[in-house]
Structure formats: structure tokens, C-alpha cells
């Protein structure tokens, strides 16, 4: 590597770090992303001038094909489908890293026998992690897209067979490191890693996909870092490591927000698809209110906190909800949104969905920022959310929700819930908040209900 290339890669690394630093505020985030892209461009251009590159046919073809697909995906994707897209992109990054590692082995040819142990180890790990990321991410994306069912696919001895598979792959990597001339080992490693990618993600339920996507994000970075070791390329190591840590941190945040350990998410096989009404055995009464009652309540409220859940996005009611919020703000009321970390289908997803509906980001408050304000709030308006406001999480020790941090909606003067039915949420736990005296249940489709409210308020 000549001096210019080395410095260009250093510059790219610095731009990546600066870019990520600027993501700390929505004001600078967009420029930060640009900086990252600039860093990438510099790295690519410098690489193209590398003296090892002698044939540009495949490079140009690859850049054009990949660029076109990437552009189309980015422009076309709906914000609700963002988790699938990010999942797929993670997979592509992992897959590319695995292929580079393999290509490097083929390039070495017979000289692989003289390669350092470090190169061989990271080559094997890069192949394993990259391939696993590719196939795991594709399964996760397919589950999110609904191409395959979101329900956990379980079979006997699943954990044991996966553990065995992983062990076999590791043994094969060790054999490969001991004797790198055994070229037939690599395709077997790739094949087994592919199977492991599939079998380790299919037992995970659709509701847990945010965790899987975050974890795959981390893996894709790690695969890149491993490839960096193989190629002795520091920019790959730095960028890959940054992404690896980012993914792990997000994974951790998601697990905490769901009150689950990573092991529980990965191996417990919980988190089913939306099921039909789970037998409503208890005949507790809820008080049904009409949109007129709700509109009256809102008109007389001074402060409103809106709690959106994914049901809001399913009903495509974000835009009309923002119309309702603007109307209330125009009347001098304080309106804010309380966003639970698992409100969407990936970390931060709900914020993007609401930003798309022109909700100003300074009205979007995270749980810790707003949870103390509920007690001084007139109306907590819950739309399409359930588990994240279920008070059972605080005290009911036998509940699957127990210990999960929730939004203190029940501390507000009045709780207004827009919901299709009384069906429990993902956790299958009945929500006692719905039966509370101060709760107004307004049944119906979220979009229709909110549209009705907007019209009533305009009168």
C-alpha cells in the first residue's frame, strides 16, 4: 500500500467517525451522513487507482449493477418496510465480506500454505460470520416482509443441533488453519454457515425481529472487520468495528426495552405472529365511548401526550394523527408524543414513521424524557399500542411483561385508547388499563377514528 492510499484510507476512517458523531443531533445528522458517504467515495476512488487492479470490466459492471439496485431500493422503499430493507442490506454487506475472504484465498493459491495464522483464522471467521449474516438476514427480512410466516419455526433438539453445527464449523476452521492447502474445507464451512444462518433465525418470532436485525447489523460490521484482518486493511477494520459496536449497543437497548436477555430472544422461540383473539375468558366490562365523547375530552384538555404503537402504522394513520395534533396545538394545547423504544419494528422506527408524517422531531420524546410528565397531563392518547402501556409490567410477577419498562400512561388524568378490539398484544397479556375507571375506550380502526376526531374538532 503506498503512502497516498494509506492516507486516503485514514481520511476515510476519520470521515466515518465524524459522520457518526454528527448523528448525535438531528440538526447535523444529514451532513454527518454526507460526510460518511464522502469518506466512502474517497476510499473507493483511491482503491481504483491501486496498482493491483488491472482489469476494470468486472468492477464497472458491478458498480453499475449494484448502484442501480441500491438506488432503486432506497428511493422506492416505504418507511414501514425500512426494517426489511436494513435487514437485507446487512445481509449484502456480510455476504460481500465472505466472498472477499474467499476470493483472497483463491488469489493466494499455493502460497496460502505460507500465510500467517492470523490471516487464516480471520479468513475462516470472516467466511463464517459473513455467510451466517447473509442467510440469517434474508430470513429475518422475509419474516418481516411476511414472505414467510413470522411464527417461530421450532423442531426437536433445535438448540442442540444448532450448537453442534456451530461446533463443527469451528472445528473445520481449526483444521483449515492447521492445513490451509485443504481447499475443500472452505465450501463446507460456507455451506454449514449458511444452514446455521437459516436455522438460527427461523426459531425467532416476528416480534423479536428488531433484535435480530440489530444483531445482524453488528455481525455485518464484524465480518467486515475480519476481512480487514485478512487483507491487512485498516479502514475495513475501523469501519467494521464501529458498525459492530453500534449493532451490539442497539441490540442491548432493544433487549432491555423488552426486558429480555439476548439468549432468551435467540433461543426461547417466543414472539408469535398476531394471533386471533386469545380466548377472552374474563368478562370484565370496559366502558365504550364514542368519538364525540373523545373529541369533547380533547377539547377540554390542556395537555395531551400521544402514545403511538405499530398498530398506528399498520392502519396508516400517522398523517391524520398529525393533523389532529396540529389542530390541538393551534388551540394552544400542549401536545407531545411519547415513543417507547420498541414502538416500531426496528430501533427508532416509530420516529421515522412520524417524521414522514411531518411530525416535528422536537415533539417526539423518548420514554425517559417524558415518563415523569404523565401525572401532570390531562389526556394520554394511546393509538395502536398495548404492551408498552400495560401496568402489569410493574407488579404482576407471573406476567411475561413483568419488569419491562413501560410508559406511565395510567398516571394521566384520563387515558384514551383507540383500538380495534380488546385483543392482547404480542405478549398475550390482557391489559388492565383498558378496564380502568379513567380509561375511555374508543373502538374502531385507528385511521377512521382519528379522522372522525379531526372532523369533530373542526366543527
Amino acid at each position, binding site marked *: 500500500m503506498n503512502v497516498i492510499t494509506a492516507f486516503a484510507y485514514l481520511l476515510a476512517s476519520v470521515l466515518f467517525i465524524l459522520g457518526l458523531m454528527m448523528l448525535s443531533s438531528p440538526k447535523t445528522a444529514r451532513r454527518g451522513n454526507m460526510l460518511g458517504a464522502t469518506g466512502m467515495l474517497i476510499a473507493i476512488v483511491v482503491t481504483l487507482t491501486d496498482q493491483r487492479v488491472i482489469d476494470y470490466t468486472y468492477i464497472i459492471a458491478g458498480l453499475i449493477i449494484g448502484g442501480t439496485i441500491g438506488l432503486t*431500493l432506497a428511493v422506492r422503499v416505504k418507511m414501514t418496510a425500512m426494517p426489511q430493507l436494513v435487514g437485507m442490506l446487512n445481509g449484502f454487506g456480510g455476504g460481500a465480506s465472505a466472498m472477499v475472504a474467499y476470493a483472497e484465498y483463491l488469489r493466494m493459491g499455493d502460497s496460502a500454505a505460507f500465510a500467517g495464522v492470523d490471516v487464516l483464522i480471520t479468513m475462516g471467521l470472516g467466511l463464517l460470520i459473513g455467510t451466517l449474516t447473509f442467510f440469517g438476514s434474508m430470513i429475518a427480512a422475509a419474516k418481516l416482509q411476511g414472505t414467510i410466516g413470522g411464527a417461530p419455526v421450532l423442531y426437536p433438539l433445535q438448540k442442540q443441533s444448532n450448537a453442534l453445527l456451530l461446533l463443527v464449523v469451528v472445528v473445520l476452521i481449526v483444521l483449515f488453519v492447521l492445513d490451509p492447502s485443504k481447499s475443500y474445507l472452505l465450501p463446507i464451512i460456507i455451506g454449514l454457515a449458511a444452514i446455521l444462518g437459516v436455522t438460527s433465525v427461523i426459531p425467532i418470532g416476528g416480534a423479536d425481529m428488531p433484535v435480530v436485525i440489530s444483531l445482524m447489523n453488528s455481525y455485518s460490521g464484524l465480518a467486515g472487520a475480519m476481512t480487514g484482518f485478512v487483507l491487512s486493511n485498516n479502514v475495513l477494520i475501523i469501519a467494521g468495528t464501529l458498525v459492530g459496536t453500534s449493532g451490539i449497543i442497539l441490540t442491548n437497548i432493544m433487549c432491555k426495552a423488552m426486558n429480555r436477555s439476548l439468549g432468551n430472544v435467540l433461543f426461547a422461540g417466543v414472539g408469535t405472529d398476531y394471533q386471533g383473539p386469545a380466548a377472552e375468558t374474563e368478562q370484565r366490562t370496559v366502558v365504550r365511548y364514542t368519538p364525540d365523547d373523545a373529541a369533547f375530552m380533547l377539547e377540554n384538555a390542556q395537555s395531551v401526550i400521544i402514545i403511538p404503537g405499530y398498530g398506528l402504522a399498520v392502519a396508516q394513520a400517522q398523517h391524520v394523527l398529525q393533523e389532529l395534533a396540529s389542530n390541538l396545538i393551534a388551540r394552544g394545547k400542549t401536545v407531545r408524543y411519547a415513543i417507547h423504544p420498541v414502538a416500531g419494528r426496528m430501533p427508532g422506527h416509530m420516529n421515522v414513521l412520524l417524521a414522514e408524517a411531518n411530525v416535528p422531531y422536537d415533539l417526539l420524546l423518548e420514554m425517559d424524557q417524558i415518563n415523569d410528565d404523565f401525572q401532570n397531563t390531562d389526556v394520554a392518547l394511546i393509538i395502536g399500542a398495548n404492551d408498552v402501556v400495560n401496568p402489569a409490567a410493574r407488579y404482576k410477577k407471573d406476567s411475561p411483561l413483568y419488569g419491562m419498562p413501560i410508559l406511565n400512561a395510567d398516571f394521566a388524568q384520563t387515558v384514551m385508547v383507540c383500538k380495534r378490539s380488546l385483543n392482547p398484544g404480542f405478549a398475550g397479556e390482557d391489559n388492565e388499563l383498558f378496564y380502568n375507571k379513567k380509561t375511555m375506550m374508543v373502538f374502531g380502526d385507528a385511521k377512521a377514528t382519528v379522522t372522525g376526531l379531526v372532523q369533530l374538532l373542526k366543527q
Partner: protein
Amino acid sequence: MTETLMVSIYIFVLATFVGVEIISKVPPLLHTPLMSGSNAISGITLVGSLIAAGEGHAQLSMYLGLAAVILATINVVGGFLVTDRMLGMFKKQPTKNVEEQKK
């Protein structure tokens, strides 16, 4: 242990600390763009793909390189563009309303 490897390990370890430090400062508001944007950055593996695709050594290695270039480019182009698209949606409230909110 070679010196190159030692340096690489240093970089790996230090980058982990930098990563933790920076990423924990990103607010949950921006976690989705963080994911898609960092994802695009992990497309840096494109650098390796380009060399594999352009070296003109073994045919198979170049085909692998081509496939890797395609996947990594989708990752890079798609990732940065979609992040930009998302971040473009994040707007602050017009100042007039902010005053009202603050009261």
C-alpha cells in the same frame, strides 16, 4: 506475531472504544438512520471487493469479486441514500409553535 497484526489488533480494540463512545451519544430518535447509515459504512468491504474483482488472477476469484462488488455497492449506495432520505424528513417545529409549547 507479526507487527502488522499487532497494529491491526490495536486498531480493532481502540476502534471498539471509539464506537461505544460515539454510538451511545446517538439519541433513540435517530436509531433507525444510525442503523442504515452505519450499515452503509460497513459496505466498506467494497474496497476489498474491488481489488478481488480487478486483479485479473483466477477467473473464479474475479467472479466472486464481481458478486461481492454488486452486493457491497447495493449496501453502500442503498444505505447512504435511504439514510439521507430519512434524515431529510426530520424537521423541527416552526418556531412560533415552539414558543407556545414552552409556556
